[in-house]
């Protein structure tokens, strides 16, 4: 059997801050470089920043994601960050979701029993508990309960939960902000991909399952005949669930599908806070929302768009 063909993408992610009044000091943490995965290779990758930072450091964060820190010590009125990359993604969706252990056994294998844990399970425990954007509440366990009847294979349960969220929630960028709590999202039944990912993660952790937050991109223009996916115009977010023996399996509650070759992974963490693409602290500046533009183009299909210099 031959290895599946990878799909090649060109990604352009541009962020522009126009501050209104000068910013005298600024420090930014960037999670913009894609990570290498079993199903994802990076052919080229580059971040351009204007003005040129006074200081820069590249590193790997505690979850293994590439991270860049930059600082600006001179007054500036705008900040422009452009991340360009070429990425190859290989198909990796599990063949049969029913072929996974019962969800209770997954939960039990993550619980502490005073013996030395399995290495992969211990790693999964990082994504088992509360984190700043993900509360663990009995309301959330209750919401997910009907998706997880006794002995159901865990991946079928997760799929059912994803479908339930997709069915019951409305995509509405005006309804929430990055700081809207998960319980409020549950009540309003509205939000954006970050909210749906947080909600789904919170439900899974409330049941004792390990779930992590994944940030990345979607194909901007769908192949002929397929609908455009939601969340393609900025960075996207979805969920990954740990299954003993199989590793992590991705689910996209915003689009109700299992991410495969149309999702490009940047980073994963406990929640948005660990891997927000751009997080900064500025001194000065007026009030202004950043402009963000993401373009993902299959390399086989056409030449990448012109980049203005």
């Amino acid at each position, binding site marked *: 059997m031959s290895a599946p063909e990878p799909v090649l993408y060109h990604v352009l992610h541009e962020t522009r801050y126009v501050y209104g009044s000068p910013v005298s000091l600024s*420090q930014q*943490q960037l999670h913009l470089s894609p990570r290498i995965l079993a199903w994802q290779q990076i052919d080229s990758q580059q971040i351009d920043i204007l003005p040129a930072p006074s200081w820069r450091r590249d590193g790997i964060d505690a979850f293994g994601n590439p991270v860049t820190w930059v600082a600006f010590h001179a007054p500036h009125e705008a900040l422009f960050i452009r991340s360009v990359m070429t990425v190859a993604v290989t198909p990796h969706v599990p063949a049969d979701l029913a072929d996974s252990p019962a969800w209770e056994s997954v939960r039990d294998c993550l619980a502490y029993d005073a013996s030395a*844990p399995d290495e992969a399970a211990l790693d999964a425990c990082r994504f088992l508990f509360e984190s700043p954007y993900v509360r663990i509440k009995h309301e959330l366990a209750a919401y997910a309960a009907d998706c997880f009847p006794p002995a159901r294979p865990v991946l079928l349960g997760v799929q059912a939960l994803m479908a339930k969220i997709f069915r019951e929630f409305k995509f509405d960028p005006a309804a929430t902000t990055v700081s809207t709590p998960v319980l409020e999202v549950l009540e309003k039944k509205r939000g954006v991909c970050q909210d749906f990912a947080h909600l789904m993660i919170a439900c899974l952790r409330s049941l004792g399952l390990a779930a992590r937050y994944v940030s990345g991109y979607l194909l901007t223009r769908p192949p002929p005949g397929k609908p455009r996916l939601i969340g393609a115009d900025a*960075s996207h977010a979805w969920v990954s669930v740990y299954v003993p023996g199989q590793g992590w399996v991705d689910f996209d509650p915003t689009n109700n599908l299992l991410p495969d070759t149309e999702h490009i992974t940047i980073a994963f963490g*406990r929640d948005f806070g660990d891997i927000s*693409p751009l997080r900064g602290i500025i001194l000065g*500046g007026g009030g202004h929302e*950043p402009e963000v533009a993401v373009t993902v183009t299959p390399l086989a299909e056409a030449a990448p768009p012109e980049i203005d210099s």
Partner: protein
Amino acid sequence: MARTLLAIYPRTAGRYDELLRPDGDVRPHWRQFFGHLDDVSPDEMHARLAVVDRRIQENGVTYNVYAEPGGSDRPWALDPLPLIIPPDEWAEIAAAVAQRASLFNAMLGDLYGEQRLLAEGLLPPALVYGQHGYLWPCHGMRPPGDVWLHHYAVDLARSPDGQWWAIADRTQAPSGAGYALENRLIVSHVFPEMFRDLRVEHLAGFFGDQQAGLAALAPVEGDEQPHIVLLTPGPYNETYFEHAYLARYLGYPLVEGQDLTVRGDTLYLKTLRGLKRVHVVLRRQDDDFCDPLELRGDSALGIPGLLNVARAGRVAIANALGSGLLGSGALMGFLPAISERLLGEPLAMPSVATWWCGEKPALEYVREHFDELVIKPAYPTQRMDPVFGNELTGEARAEMLRRMEARPHAYVAQEMVNLSQAPTWSRAHERRLLARPVGLRAYAVWTPDGYSVMPGGLARVATGANTRIISMQRGGASKDAWVLTDGPVSDFTLLKPSVGVRDLVRAGANLSSRVVENLFWLGRYSERFDDSARMLRVALSRLVEAGGSKTPAVDTALMLAEKLGVLPEPDEDEPVKAGSEHVLLEAIYDPNQPGSLAGNIRSLMWSAMHVRERLSLDHWHSLNRLQREQMAAQKKHPSMTEAMAFLDRVLGVSSSLTGFAMDNMTRDDGWRFLIIGRRLERLSFLSQTLASFLRMGAAERAGCLEWLLELADSIITYRSRYSRTPELLPVLDLLVFDDSNPHGVLFQGMALARYLDRLCRDLALPREDRLALALDELRSFDLTRFEQGGGLRRRQGSPIDGLAARLEQLDEAAGHLSDWLAMRFFTHVGDVSRQTMAL
């Protein structure tokens, strides 16, 4: 001889008694002290208690209590009797505390590094990954010297069988060591002979060890001297007194987050003379507030980029960021095995029996033995008071159990410890000992030779004989702890002999911009409250003299006070009220009225509080007296006579404050800003006063020149020179042009210009000459114009108008100068960093 104190000292079954053996005899290590106590007469003891109270009050030892309405400062509560611990017993405690500190240090290194403890199943992941206190961005860091835990505290308690137990560990930013030091200074003065004869171990060596440990870890380059700062969340923190106290004692600048800034991977203090590198941060701020870039993004107290400095190994943070994790009581049950694994030795001191409900069998046990247990939060970041199982009944109990079952890993249950009891001195009786439950907080600091344990600590006693929780928040009291030694007592000292009188000291070049700003305002408010007190005294005394009727002198004084903003603008709907007794009293006592004396005193105290570690004890005592006077006066309805007496007392304090500023302060940059603040305020007050006085035509009204001299504090000089009824020309000469009169405009203006020149020269700044120009203008005024008849007539181009205009010009120049100083030197508090995010 009086009846022995033992006669009515309560014996309690089921508790260990620190003073008495089970057979009722005084324990050997207490005998000498107890004998002394038994001999002290009630009068003598009364006097000693008064010493304790006075020193606490004068030194301003306070504990900020959030729990109380208004969150006011409360005087620190101290029982004068020490808790005495014999040498052999202490040796065991100290060894156990040092071991525990080493253990926690090793645990932090493991949990932020390899995580063998998790891989080997020695700790449940929930107690690490499940804690908000586990700071993921710190994972993989290596602090200088691999030291995570520089200072550590543990709350100890003694069970009925005499065994000491660890009750709670403090690994974030342990507080109380400074209070222990202050307690020691006070109690050793209350029982000086006993302190000497019993050979009590001194505390100074411990703080010396702390200094040495921090300096040893400073990542200095070349011949840099370690620059160590103490980071405080600010004056609203419950233990701010201690931060200021320790900063002064250890000789470290006290800084707030906004005083520090990161450039690249270096941390700096913003000083008057530019950025100065910081090598070590002794932090009293919780770690998750320390860097809004990577930790809590909503923290305005933090230093953006601090983690990157730590990552580069270019700053030692004590304790390292992330250390708060180990304050969790849920860890206690796992410590014995971890000690064997990481240290290769058994844990010396047992922890109080603790069940972490995250383990199923433990939760079962807790359910079955609920009445015997105390339920506590598993994580230090949880807000929850301990709950005693046997006090919970009915629905409350069911609710608690439901909560525990929903999130078992968030709760621990601990055995109830029957604390030992120690004697305390009853304040309610003439001569009586009470027995109170006691606990001891012990402290350890890292040194290159291992952990050093403070010989002593902060002993705390509960409010009642049966109170089960000891907490300063709940009104408990503290005690000094005396550890006796068989050997010689070390006389090592950190206290400089001149500590009582020096001020504003040490590395003057390291003054942060914030400190300079506060000193400037301290100067301005010291002068402003003096000015308003004088103005009010003039108005009040004239009103009293005139028997309440409105003479020209009274009316003019009230008008001037209104112009200067000391009295409120008259209410047009109620003209009768203007200048009434009621209005005057409010202007004196109501702190919420703009421009009132009380309001100015409050602002003065506020600025002083922010530079507390820079003021000498004497200086601070005077400020405290001022505030006490004011608080005492607020309680009753004062009469006019009482108000006059109050103003006299306030002015007395004011002159002592001036004395400290002029005589006892080192002439460094900070002092210069304080004096510039004072001069500027006085110059502005005098120019405004005189200009308004002239423009009001007050010079023509009977009695007004007299009070003007009084207001400018120059009446004595005037009388000694002219000994006659004041006339306008000599009064103006004295108050405006005489450059030998310290209360004169020109004297103040010239002095201010001199300080300013010096400052500009020292800091290599272009000269600010608007003030000098205004002074030249004033000096060139021809005073003889007042001789040429009709000088008093006010009209366009009259001498009166001309002089008033020049004084107003000077006042304007002073205002401009204040703005210039603020722009050029001060931290802009309003300019807070904020978070941005993009998807």
